[in-house]
């Protein structure tokens, strides 16, 4: 009896593993080419800075504050997270498509944490897919696209909203049980209103962003 249960568990785990790796059957492969900003609208633009009310759950710690994205020159921008009390927690420099932690508050400044934050912030901003060669799948029924790319043993899936190039959700699958899901919501002005990221695996991280107008924070 115990052997039967173990066998069942093993088979169902394999089934889950195979089904979770597959592209949903309603999506049909259309082409393979470089994915550009026309396919998926970038989350941030060079012209405006964006401020988000931010909640970060990192292991068993909870941090809240403001996340600012600002372009400093034609190729460089920064992502800065500041607590409500004014303490800067991190400053990530984005040069072209590469993210580098310039500053991290001492208690958080551990290589595993800084790498995790660099990768997941890059994932939120869609850097793994934009300007890379990926596969484009089309769902004619729901009228949205799925863009996929495989890089460094990770598989990336980006789903757009129906009849739009705005990102609806992204899923990243890595080694073993590492999985990351990000859900995006846009407002009437086509600006990203909220972003929610959940990172499962050995390193656990949750990021929730809710946009606030920069005017409100600068008055």
């Amino acid at each position, binding site marked *: 009896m115990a052997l039967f249960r173990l066998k069942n568990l093993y088979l169902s785990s394999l089934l889950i593993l195979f089904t979770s790796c597959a592209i949903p059957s309603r999506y049909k492969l259309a082409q393979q080419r470089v994915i550009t900003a026309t396919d998926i609208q970038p989350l941030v633009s060079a012209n405006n*800075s964006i*401020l988000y009310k931010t909640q970060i759950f990192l292991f068993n710690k909870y941090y809240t504050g403001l996340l*600012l994205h600002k372009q400093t020159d034609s190729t460089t921008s920064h992502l800065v997270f500041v*607590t409500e009390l*004014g303490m*800067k927690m991190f400053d990530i420099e984005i040069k072209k498509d590469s993210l580098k932690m310039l500053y991290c508050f001492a*208690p958080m400044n551990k290589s595993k944490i800084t790498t995790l934050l660099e990768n997941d912030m890059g994932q939120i901003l869609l850097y793994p897919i934009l300007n890379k060669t990926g596969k484009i799948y089309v769902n004619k029924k729901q009228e949205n696209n799925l863009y996929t790319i495989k890089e460094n043993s990770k598989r990336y899936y980006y789903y757009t909203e129906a009849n739009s190039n705005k990102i609806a959700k992204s899923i990243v699958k890595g080694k073993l049980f590492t999985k990351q899901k990000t859900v995006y919501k846009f407002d009437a002005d086509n600006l990203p209103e909220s972003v929610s990221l959940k990172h499962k695996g050995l390193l656990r991280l949750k990021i929730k962003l809710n946009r606030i107008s920069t005017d409100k924070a600068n008055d």
Partner: protein
Amino acid sequence: MLKHTLYIIFSIFSISLIAQTNFKPVKDTVLLKEKINTLSKTTNTLESDFTQVKTLSMLSEKITSKGHFCFQKTNLLRWEYSSPYTYIIVINKDKVLIKDDSKLKKYDMNSNKVFKEINDIMISCIDGSILSSNKFKIAYGENDKAYRLELTPLIKGMKESLKKIYMYFDKAVTSVTKLEMIETTDDFTVIDFTNKKVNGAIPAEKFILK
């Protein structure tokens, strides 16, 4: 004409900047320390509105927050932000309570080094205990309008994040009027306290979040 007007405006602006920054060393530091000690001993409660401006120097960006704060001896603190969004943080002895979007979170102060560090600095600045702290080297300055304490962190863990803290007192040393925290990255936070109420009654519920 325009050139002259611009010159006058620039001169006035420069004079006002110099007046703000021109602090000379205090001659009688013993007397100032006594005044600050008396202030911290006689201040049991403190309420104030505040405006907090965070300047991210490299990005030339300022983030302004506004709210109300309450302090009661010993170790009871409430920061209530009303702008750019509502957020309340209460420190009740060794507990940290945060109300955010009507969600309440409770933490043990000692379980989070970041909270503990920030709280220790804030409380010791407000209750004056920072003067007897061995965590800072203190220099005393004054101009005709204010006293300024320049605190330089001495201990590891704080030196990496904070370069200086400036505490400003009015000339009569009735309360802290302004706090400036300069980070090692040259970003800085300025908190201006206005509409202060010293030793007024503060309801106990202010330090309890449900």
